[in-house]
């Protein structure tokens, strides 16, 4: 569906007009190269991204503290048993949910970042620009730093993001923030108001959290900090359907918004002059972003960098501003980026695990810079 078929398709609906104002022109002047060929987007970047994604997916299943041969992994994925029972267990119970979570989270954040950058016409916008990370962090801070329901010693070592109460607190915080943003969005005249609102929510929660930190004990502070590092390892099979549902719903909504996002490139006034219901589009973009970012933040913690970098990388790779293609590319590239970050954080063969958020930026920033400079003049990649 990504090549030229949807751009030049003959089955697209021709809207009948009451009075055709121009004569029925031939599709193209004889001899002249039809201009529409310039709208075509090559297929190879998608194939490349898909190949990288599959490779990283298999690597994620294979590498770790225990190395598992590729043929064994394929056997397990096909529903069979590996030669050693432990391998089957490791793949099915730990590595597969981790890989799935990473792909869902990466794809979700890539698309959310793409929408935010177009919506705010700002290349620096990220998925949490509406204050979703801030709201979630406040929820988690309230649970971890104030209530005594979670013992400090229990929190110290184990997978924290997997704790149900943390996910619930993060979801609640994110949801409340989103509700506030939506409330304002219905009255706001322009998107700058929302940008300011997101900034204010961030500042407010940061101040509140720092107060909580100030009066808290070290173990709890450590637990809160750990949540902030982010992790793809905390989602169990039982929780997976919730994450899948939220991310798929958000991505579908983003896909429906593709045409509207293209119109939004010209700014809200031009978009309205093209017949776009800007208010409805705005609400749609916010809901989709909230679903994607909210779900990921609740289950994986505040993952940074992927959401801001992946859209730029995709624009550099495809050299287009057509969101219908960029959304698909952002899903593939975001998922691949998240898997790569997860792999590097695990440091295959070593005993320690690096904080995910440190890895995403540490290794991602040079790659994105390379793509932007290599594939296009810096700055031209930006939508704004």
């Amino acid at each position, binding site marked *: 569906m990504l090549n030229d078929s949807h751009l030049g398709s003959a089955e697209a609906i*021709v*809207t009948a007009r009451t009075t055709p104002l121009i004569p029925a022109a031939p599709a193209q002047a004889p001899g002249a190269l039809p*201009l529409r060929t310039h709208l075509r987007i090559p297929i190879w970047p998608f194939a490349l991204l898909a190949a990288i994604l599959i490779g990283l997916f298999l690597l994620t299943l294979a590498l770790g503290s225990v190395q598992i041969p590729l043929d064994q992994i394929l056997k397990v994925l096909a529903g069979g048993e590996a030669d050693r029972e432990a391998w089957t267990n490791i793949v099915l119970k730990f590595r597969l949910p981790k890989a799935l979570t990473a792909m869902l989270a990466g794809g979700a954040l890539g698309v959310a970042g793409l929408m935010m950058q177009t919506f705010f016409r700002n290349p620096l916008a990220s998925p949490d620009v509406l204050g979703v990370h801030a709201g979630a962090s406040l929820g988690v801070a309230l649970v971890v730093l104030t209530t005594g329901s979670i013992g400090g010693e229990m929190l110290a070592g184990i997978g924290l993001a997997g704790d149900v109460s943390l996910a619930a607190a993060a979801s609640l915080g994110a949801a409340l923030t989103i509700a506030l943003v939506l409330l304002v969005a219905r009255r706001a005249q322009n998107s700058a108001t929302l940008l300011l609102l997101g900034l204010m929510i961030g500042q407010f929660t940061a101040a509140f959290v720092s107060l909580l930190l100030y009066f808290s004990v070290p173990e709890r502070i450590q637990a809160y900090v750990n949540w902030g590092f982010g992790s793809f390892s905390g989602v169990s099979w039982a929780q997976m359907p919730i994450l899948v549902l939220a991310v798929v719903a958000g991505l579908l909504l983003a896909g429906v918004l593709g045409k509207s996002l293209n119109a939004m490139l010209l700014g809200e006034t031009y978009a309205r002059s093209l017949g776009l219901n800007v208010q409805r589009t705005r609400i749609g973009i916010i809901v989709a972003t909230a679903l994607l970012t909210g779900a990921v933040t609740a289950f994986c913690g505040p993952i940074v960098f992927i959401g801001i970098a992946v859209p730029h990388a995709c624009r550099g790779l495809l050299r287009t501003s057509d969101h219908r293609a960029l959304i698909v590319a952002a899903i593939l590239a975001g998922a691949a980026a998240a898997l790569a970050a997860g792999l590097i954080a695990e440091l295959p063969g070593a005993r320690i695990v690096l904080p995910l958020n440190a890895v995403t930026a540490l290794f991602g920033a040079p790659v994105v810079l390379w793509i932007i400079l290599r594939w296009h003049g810096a700055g031209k990649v930006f939508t704004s």
Partner: protein
Amino acid sequence: MTIALQTHALSIGYPVARRAPITLLADLDVTLQSGELVCLIGPNGAGKSTLLRTLAGLQPSLAGLQPSLAGQVLVGGQDIAQIDPRERAQRIGIVLTERLSPGLLTGYGLVALGRHPYTDWMGRLSPRDEAVVQWAVEAVAATEYAARPLEECSDGQRQKLLIARALAQEPAVLLLDEPTAYLDLTRRVEMMRLLRDLARTTGRAILLSTHDLELALRMADRIWLLAEGALHTGAPEDLALGGVFEAAFQAAGVTLNAATGSFVLQNEAREPIRVFGEGSARAWTERALERAGFSISSNGAALRVDVAQTPAGSRWQLWHNGDAHEYPTIHALVSALREKSH
């Protein structure tokens, strides 16, 4: 001639927080005919952009802000506030003054966005959509650079592509806010001619705002003159004969020269000067003298200039109280006159 757009008792203005909205113009009853080019002129801040945006349905009329006030914009006989935005976009196209920051968009991609109100939910272009886009690009003679990224296009090229985008909407009414603002003189003339031809050949009504009075008077079928809270409409010649321009621009120190149809700056305390000579040398000399603050007199004056044509070029002789001085250029002549008057 059919009426493309019509207003009834329309009031335009903008809302102010916690106060009554500001009214810029009240009780407008105007029409736009299919196939005519209308120029909207008036000083900055008179409400030209607000009027265009209100006519395009992008900004509520005061009726929308304050229901007690009546007023509507009718396109094809239907109230613009009542039609579906998609349907509205198929009837009215607009080009605004705001500058684009188009990123990776190409010219053709921009024009293709004009098909937005016609395409399906995915925005797929049908063969007819593509034909219309191609036609729009050709109509503004932008084929040569339509494949380039917008960022590599000049201001004039972008403006043409934006107009092509509006044309691709196949609207009955085309509204343009200062389409010649960023262009040099030749491009301005070219743009106006293009728009006039488009109005003629495609039967669209085109309304554009401009600050280029002389060009507007020469090109427009009708003028909408916005001044001091009133809108005067009519053929440029009718408005000129009726003294409407004189009244509107008096405060600005500009008068309309009835003989040439051009605007001249009003200078106070003008000293008369008489010019003898032939052809363009004389015309340009008079123009320079007028700019320098003299009024060209056709009878006896204390100052007199003879423009002499010699094989080597023109020479200017200035006569003053019986003394004669000769100057090689108009600039030298005007400089000498300026010194004299000090």
